C-alpha cells in the first residue's frame, strides 16, 4: 500500500512537471485526484489496511495528496504566467503607453523651488511681503531719498489715491523685493539670513528681456564679520547649483544706493552660449548682443540701510542681492523671450 502511494506520487509529480499547458494539467488532475482517479481509488482501500497501521497509511495518503495538489498548483501558476507572456508577444508593445492625465507645474515655480531649497541648505529662510508698498520701504529705507536720480532706473507705477487719505506717491507698486529688507530687519536682530521671492512692477516698455511685471528673489544676510568674499562665494555657489557647475560668471562694479561696494553679476548667455550671435548669424537680442546676461545685482549693505533698521554698522555687516528670477528661468530653459513666462499656452506649459 505504501509503495503504491509513493509510486502514484512520483508518477504524478513527474507528469505535472512535464506538462506544458492548462489542459494537460487538468487531465493529470482528473487522472489522479478525480472521482475515479488513481489516488481517490486508493483512498477507498485504506479501510482494508489492518487497524493498527491504518492511521500511519492514512497520514501518508494525505501527504501524497497534498504534495500532488501543491505541485499541480505551482505548475498551473507557471503555465498561466507563460501563457500571459505569449499573449504579450501577440500585442504591439511598441505602441506608446497611456500616460496618466496629469498637469504641469510652471517652470517659474520649478526654478523657485530649487532656489528656495538651495538657500535653505545655507540657512536662509523665506519671507513674503506686500506688492502694494510704501515709498518708505521701497526707496527711503534703502537710502534712496525722494529726489534721488537712482529712482530713474526704477520707474515706478503709482497707485490712484482718489477717495483715500493717502497722499499721491506715498503708496506704490513695489519696484524691487529689496523693499523687504527694512520690513524684516527692523523686527529682528542679527544674525539674519532671508530670501524674499516675489513679483515687482516697473513702468517699463515690454520687450524680449523686459517686462512691467517681473519676479525677483531678494536675499540678505547680516552678521558679525560678513565679507565681500562671502557675497562672491554665495553667488557662485547658488548660481552653479541652479545652472550647473560649468556656469560662467563674472562680477562688475555697479551702484545702488543701498549697497556699498556694489556688485553686478553676469552669467554667460545660455541662448547664444556667450557668442552674442545666434547660429543663423543674427545678433542675440536676449543678451543685447553682449554674450552676458545681468542676473544678480548685489553688494554689501550700505551703512545707512543698517542704521535705518537700528543696526550698528561698526559691529555688524551684511550683503544683499536680487536674483532676476524671470530671467533666470528663461536662461535655464534657453527661452528667448521673457513674455513666454506669462503666456498660458499649454504648448509651452506642457514642455515642463
Amino acid at each position, binding site marked *: 500500500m505504501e509503495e503504491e502511494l509513493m509510486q502514484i506520487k512520483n508518477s504524478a509529480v513527474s507528469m505535472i512537471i512535464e506538462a506544458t499547458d492548462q489542459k494537460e494539467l487538468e487531465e493529470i488532475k482528473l487522472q489522479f485526484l478525480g472521482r475515479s482517479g488513481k489516488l481517490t481509488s486508493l483512498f477507498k482501500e485504506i479501510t482494508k489496511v489492518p487497524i493498527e497501521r491504518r492511521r500511519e497509511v492514512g497520514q501518508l495518503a494525505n501527504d501524497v495528496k497534498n504534495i500532488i495538489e501543491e505541485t499541480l498548483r505551482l505548475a498551473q501558476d507557471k503555465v498561466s504566467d507563460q501563457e500571459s507572456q505569449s499573449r504579450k508577444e501577440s500585442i504591439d508593445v511598441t505602441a506608446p503607453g497611456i500616460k496618466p492625465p496629469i498637469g504641469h507645474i510652471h517652470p517659474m515655480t520649478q526654478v523657485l523651488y530649487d532656489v528656495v531649497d538651495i538657500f535653505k541648505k545655507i540657512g536662509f529662510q523665506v519671507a513674503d511681503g506686500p506688492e502694494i508698498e510704501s515709498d518708505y520701504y521701497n526707496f527711503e529705507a534703502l537710502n534712496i531719498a525722494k529726489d534721488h536720480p537712482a529712482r530713474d532706473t526704477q520707474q515706478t507705477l503709482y497707485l490712484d489715491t482718489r477717495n483715500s487719505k493717502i497722499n499721491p506717491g506715498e503708496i506704490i507698486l513695489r519696484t524691487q523685493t529689496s523693499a523687504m529688507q527694512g520690513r524684516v530687519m527692523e523686527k529682528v536682530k542679527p544674525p539674519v539670513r532671508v530670501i524674499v521671492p516675489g513679483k515687482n512692477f516697473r513702468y517699463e516698455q515690454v520687450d524680449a528681456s523686459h517686462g512691467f511685471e517681473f519676479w525677483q528673489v531678494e536675499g540678505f544676510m547680516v552678521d558679525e564679520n560678513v565679507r*565681500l568674499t562671502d557675497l562672491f562665494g554665495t553667488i557662485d555657489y547658488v548660481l552653479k547649483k541652479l545652472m550647473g557647475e560649468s556656469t560662467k560668471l563674472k562680477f562688475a562694479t555697479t551702484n545702488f544706493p543701498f549697497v556699498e561696494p556694489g556688485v553686478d553679476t553676469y552669467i554667460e548667455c545660455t541662448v547664444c552660449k556667450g557668442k552674442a550671435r545666434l547660429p543663423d548669424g543674427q545678433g542675440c537680442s536676449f543678451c543685447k548682443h553682449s554674450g552676458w546676461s545681468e542676473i544678480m545685482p548685489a553688494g554689501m549693505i550700505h551703512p545707512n540701510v543698517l542704521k535705518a533698521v537700528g543696526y550698528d554698522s561698526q559691529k555688524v555687516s551684511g550683503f544683499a542681492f536680487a536674483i532676476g528670477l524671470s530671467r533666470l528661468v528663461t536662461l535655464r530653459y534657453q527661452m528667448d523671450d521673457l513674455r513666454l513666462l506669462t503666456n498660458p499656452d499649454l504648448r509651452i506649459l506642457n514642455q515642463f
Partner: protein
Amino acid sequence: MLAPLSWLKEYVDIKLTPKELGEKLTEVGLGVEKITKTSDDTIFELEITPNRPDLLSIIGITREIAAIENQPAGKAGKNIKYPKFKTQLKPTAKVLPLTIKTDSKINPRFTGIIISGVKVGESPKWLKDRLEKMGQRPINNIVDITNYVMLELGNPIHAFDYDKIAEHIMIVSQTKGGEKFESVDGVTYHLPKDTVVISDKEKIIDLCGIKGGRNTGTYEDTKTIFIRVPVEISNLIRRTSLSLGLRSEASSIFERGVNAGGTIDALKRTVDLVLELAGGEVASELYDIKKEYFKPWKLELRVKRLNQILGIEIPTKKILEILGSLNLSPIHLPGERKRHLEGETVIECAIPTYRNDLKIEEDLIEEIARIYGYNNFPKTMPGGTIPTKQIPYFKDYRLDEKVKNILKASGFSEIYTYSLISEKDLIEAGINSQNVLRVDNPVSRDFEYLRPTLKTNLLKALSQNKSNFEKINLFELGKVYNGKNLDEAEENYFLSGISNSKSYFEVKGMLEKIFEDLGIKEDPTRYIEILNERIFFELNYSELIKKINPDKKFIPLPKYPPIVEDLSIISDAKTSEIIDEIKKQSSIIVNVSLLDQFEDSRTFHIVYQDENKNLTGEEVAKIREKLLKSLKEKFTARLRE
C-alpha cells in the same frame, strides 16, 4: 555716454586693446553696452550709474582708464594730460556792464565772463566731427564749443547773447508757477512753481540747468556773448525736469551733482576755444559768485576695516597705489597721528570736488575693491551661526508645493498671469471699475487695474488654448488685490482654476483632497462655480492656510471586523442631509458614503464598527431599523425594494 577712443587717447596712454579695455571698464563700473568700430575710430557706449556725474565727461572716463592701467598718480590729477589754459580771464577789451543778482540757496555758484566781438559761424571740421561722434548735431561755433567743453570736462555751460539781455541785468529766482518760457529749440513750456530761472529786466531768459531761452540764444548776428558756468541744486533741477518731462545732457549732470570746483576750468577752456575759433576779446572781469570755496574734503580709511569688509588682506602699499591712481591724494597717517585704535593703520584721502560720490569710508573701500578687480577676489562661504528663530513674514513654500502637486495630479496645469488687467476685462466680468484699485500711470490701458480676481485671466487663458486643445484644465496661485480705494487695499493669494473637461464633482473632490491634506475641515462647495460648460473655482488661499492643521496623529487599526452594508434609499432630501442623518443614529456607524445613484434612488455605503467587540447581525439590524425610521420621518425616505 559715448566715448570715442581717439578722444580718450588725447589725455591718457592706453595699452589695453579696445576689447580688454571694454571688459575692464565694465568691471570697474562703466558698463560697456556696445563697442562700435567706425572707419577711423572706436566708439564705446557706456552706461553711467547715477552716482557718477563725473563719468558723463571724457576727462572723467580717462581718469578711470588711468587707474585701470595702473598709472602712478605723481602729483594729484597728473596721471592724465589735462588741458592747459591760455586765458587769464582778464578783460582785454572795453569792459561792458552787467548786473548779476543771485541767491546761493538756489544757485550755489555762478561763474561767467563776457566776450565781445565774436564772429558766429560754422565750426571747424574737427569740432563738428567730434560732436557728431558724440551723437550731437553741430549748430554754430559758440554753441558747439559750449557743448564740447561740457562733454570734455563735465560742467554744463551756456552762452547768452549779451546784447539781448534787457538792461544787462540777470536775476536768478524761483517761479511762482505758470510762466511761459520758450527754449532755444523753439518749444514753449509752462513752468511749474519753484523752477529756478534767470530773468533780465523784462523776461525769463534761462531755464537754469536745463535749457537756455530762445530770446537770448546765440545766432548768426550775435556779437557779444556772456558765458555762464553754474552750479545748480540737484533736487530743484530734477523736480523741474521731471515735471516738464524735459531732459538735457546738462540736467542729467546737475541732477547727479556737478563738479562744483570745476567751473573756472570749464570757463577757461571755453574762453580759449571761443577766442581761437570765433575771435573776440574778454570784455569783463571774471564773475564768480559762490556760496563757499569748493575744495577737496578729507576722508579716512582704516586698513583693518577695509580688509574686514572685503575679506582679503590687501597690502597697504597696494592700497596707496590704487588710491593714488584715482587721484585721491592718499596720505599714510604715521606715528602719533593714529587717532583710532592702537596700532591701526589709517589712510587719509583728499577727495576732489568731481567725486561727489565719495562721502563715507565704505565708498573708499569700494574704490579699492573695484580697481583691485572684483574678479580677482577669492570666494568664501559665510561663517557664523545659522539663525533658527522663525523670521517675520515667513512663508512655507512646501505648502504651496503640496497644493500644486495635487492640482497637477488632477490634470491641472499652472499658469502665471499679469496682476494688471484692463477696464474691458473688468466690464466683461461684470465688475465695476470704480471699486477696483487703479494705477495712475499705467504702461498701457491694457494694464491699468489691479486684478480683484484671477477669473478674467483664467477665462482668457482657456479660450486662448481652445484652438489647440480639447481638454483644458488651468490653475493659478497668485495675488489678488481688493479694496474700493487705497485705504482699504488688501492683497491676498488666491487659488483659482478653470476646466472645460472636469465634472463638478471631480473639481469638488480635488478641493476636498487638498483640504484633507492640509487638515482643513471645510466644505469646498462655496468656492466652485459652474460657468456654462466650464467649472471654475476660486478661494482665498491666504485665508485658507490660516486654518491649516498640520498635526497628524496615528489612529490604531480596529481590533474587531466591521460590518458593511449598502442601503438604497429613495428620497428628495440632499445627499449631505441623508448622510448626516444616518451618521447621527449611532456611534458605531463610523463611515457613510454615497456609492451610487440610479434614477430616484441613491445607494449609501455604511460601515458599522465597534472598537470594543465583534458586532452581531442583530445589533446592526436594530440600528438599521432606527435609521430607516428616522429617514422616513425626516425626509419621507424609504428603502428601495
